[in-house]
């Protein structure tokens, strides 16, 4: 295929030369070439020379965002949320990391604690031992269509490179509000009898391990009556991978109870690769089921998610959470992100807002977050 492309290029070069000859308009051939040629890489939207105009914003990224490494390999970025070293990043990108370490500006932190995570937003709260880190300025108003946005794109040990783009579409929920954890079944709603029955039990799922079968009717989940999909989603929406849900199930005449382990949606259900996916290069494994996102055209790589989304004024309007496809990148809006950070910090204990009421959760787990 490359060969064909090259053939075409040379062909068009010939046509260009021909055109200049045909026109004979008295414009210099240099002018004609400019009109009718290629723009150098450095002057393109994400070219080196263009990035220079964004330098004040790059400096904000340099000082108050983090690069997350596995050994020597950079795997994600992070938003610094407290001067004493709390930061947030994309949870699924650090899930299987062996040698987690972090750089903030020129400082290198080898001891990194994963404090808590939320699967609903795919965000992890990390802690490094630091003080006096510069904090980012927040802007909670969602940016309008066409607003310039700036993010970390790649990095050397000393300096950050940008990616620039604009806000592309309406902020919204993506993934139809489906829970990020699943039983691992396909469900059928019978509207007449108002019941929800199991169509197919997927292999390697919690439902399969627990012994659920095709045709089972789900009656209750954790004691809540289930009549339609939404009833079940409400219960699952607040759960983490590895949590259990107690299902009351009717099989024939009998009612039985099952404890089903919940697993990450993307690990149980394989997505069918669409034609648009095929032309997209690599995209984030977790790229859907977020309660609200801002959509941009930032050409981020999978490994440049997790960092702040800045405006031209250097203010943070969100955190990049997924590369969705060739032309869509999602970010958590700052209002939702700030709420989320407060929730995650609450579990820390000596966090900013100490919650007086005891939070019921397993040690090392994370707090319940609203759906």
């Amino acid at each position: 295929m490359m060969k064909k492309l090259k053939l075409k290029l040379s062909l068009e070069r010939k046509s260009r030369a021909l055109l200049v000859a045909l026109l004979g308009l008295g414009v210099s051939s240099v002018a004609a070439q400019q009109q009718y040629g290629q723009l150098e890489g450095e002057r393109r939207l994400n070219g080196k020379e263009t990035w220079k105009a964004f330098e004040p914003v790059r400096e904000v990224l340099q000082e108050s965002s983090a690069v997350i490494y596995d050994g020597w390999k950079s795997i994600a970025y992070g938003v610094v949320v407290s001067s004493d070293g709390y930061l947030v990043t994309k949870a699924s990108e650090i899930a299987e990391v062996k040698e987690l370490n972090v750089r903030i500006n020129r400082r290198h932190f080898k001891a990194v604690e994963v404090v808590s995570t939320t699967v609903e937003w795919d965000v992890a709260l990390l802690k490094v031992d630091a003080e006096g880190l510069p904090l980012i300025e927040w802007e909670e108003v969602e940016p309008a269509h066409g607003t310039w946005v700036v993010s970390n794109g790649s990095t050397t040990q000393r300096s950050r490179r940008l990616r620039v783009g604009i806000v592309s579409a309406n902020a919204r929920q993506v993934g139809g509000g489906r829970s990020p954890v699943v039983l691992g079944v396909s469900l059928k709603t019978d509207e007449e009898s108002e019941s929800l029955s199991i169509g197919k039990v997927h292999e390697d799922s919690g439902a399969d391990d627990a012994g659920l079968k095709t045709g089972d009717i789900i009656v209750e989940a954790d004691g809540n009556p289930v009549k339609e999909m939404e009833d079940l989603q409400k219960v699952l929406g607040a759960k983490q991978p590895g949590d259990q849900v107690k299902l009351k199930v009717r099989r024939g005449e009998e009612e039985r109870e099952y404890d089903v382990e919940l697993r990450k949606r993307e690990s149980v259900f394989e997505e069918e690769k669409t034609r648009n996916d095929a032309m997209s290069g690599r995209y984030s494994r977790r790229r859907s089921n977020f309660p609200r996102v801002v959509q941009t055209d930032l050409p981020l790589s999978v490994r440049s998610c997790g960092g702040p989304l800045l405006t031209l004024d250097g203010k943070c309007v969100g955190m990049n959470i997924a590369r969705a496809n060739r032309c869509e990148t999602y970010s958590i809006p700052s209002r939702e992100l700030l709420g989320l950070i407060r929730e995650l910090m609450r579990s820390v204990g000596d966090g900013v807002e100490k919650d007086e009421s005891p939070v019921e959760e397993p040690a090392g787990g994370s707090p319940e977050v609203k759906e």
Partner: protein
Amino acid sequence: MIRTFPHTGHLLGGMAALWGLTFAWIPAFGADEEQDESPYFNRKEVPEGIRDLKKIQEALQENLPRSRSATVSIDLGGGSGSGVIVSEEGLVLTAAHVSGGVGKKMTVIMEDGTRHAATSLGLVASTDAAMLRIDEEGSYPYVEVDKKDTAGLGDWVYALGHSGGFDKERGVGVRIGRLVRMADQTINSDCNLIGGDSGGPLFDMKGRLIGIHSRVGQTLEQNMHVPIREFMTHWEGMIENEFIGEGPFAQKGGVAFMGVGTELREEGGLLVKVVGEMSPAEKAGIKVGDVILEMDGEKVEAKDAFSAAIKDYKVGDKVKLRILRDDEEIEVEVELGEKK
């Protein structure tokens, strides 16, 4: 509905359009040039700081609401593209590989979800230009066309389109970029496009239509548009329902068809679930239970990519399928028929 690879090797087609181009190009150097002066930031090598960037943002945001209101999704039933309204009466410009022929019925969807029946007018099969008309009389939002073809290399531009099909919650998607390559029948920008954007509009920073999205290459910077001059050159012919030029973007003989229903197999390939009666597939001896692994040497990895690839062929073309049948790989040749 966007092609992953450009069709190549049409030397004569290229030459023919060259003459048309010279004709449309000359006025750009005429006396009106000053009136059409492009924004100051287009004359800079690159923006020189935050101020220039803000000017670009302001220009884009000033024109965006109107551009969005005139950008439509085109529902073809089983596929979709984009288009843009260019007259109050509802004339729509799109790509030839979206409209797919002359006199075809389709549905145009506005950003707010309003649907209008439309009929395709003429097209230019060699360069991917096409027109439709909304059937119902009315007063539709529309954009200005850069009739004088003033766009130049390096100009700041923005692309709109219903990427991946209509999505009311998301609305139409906008992407920014520059014109990075100009050639006789194609202009490239670094506004990133994807399937569903085909036929959608490319605007200059004054909100004037300068191109229609056609296809993408392997890299992010290969986003190709039909230049507006191609529409200007063939405007009358398209209005008169003419089928202009020959392939590759539309075929006179209709849409190519194989006649299999398939399902993605976990281990790869497509499992044949249904073979149409009297279909080209049946005539070639394809059976339910066969697994299609390759078509003309290209791996078959997704259902929608497979059916889109078939439509890229002409009626009567022969394709070679590599098929897994009873644990044995065989090769089958199918002569594609016409979709009724």
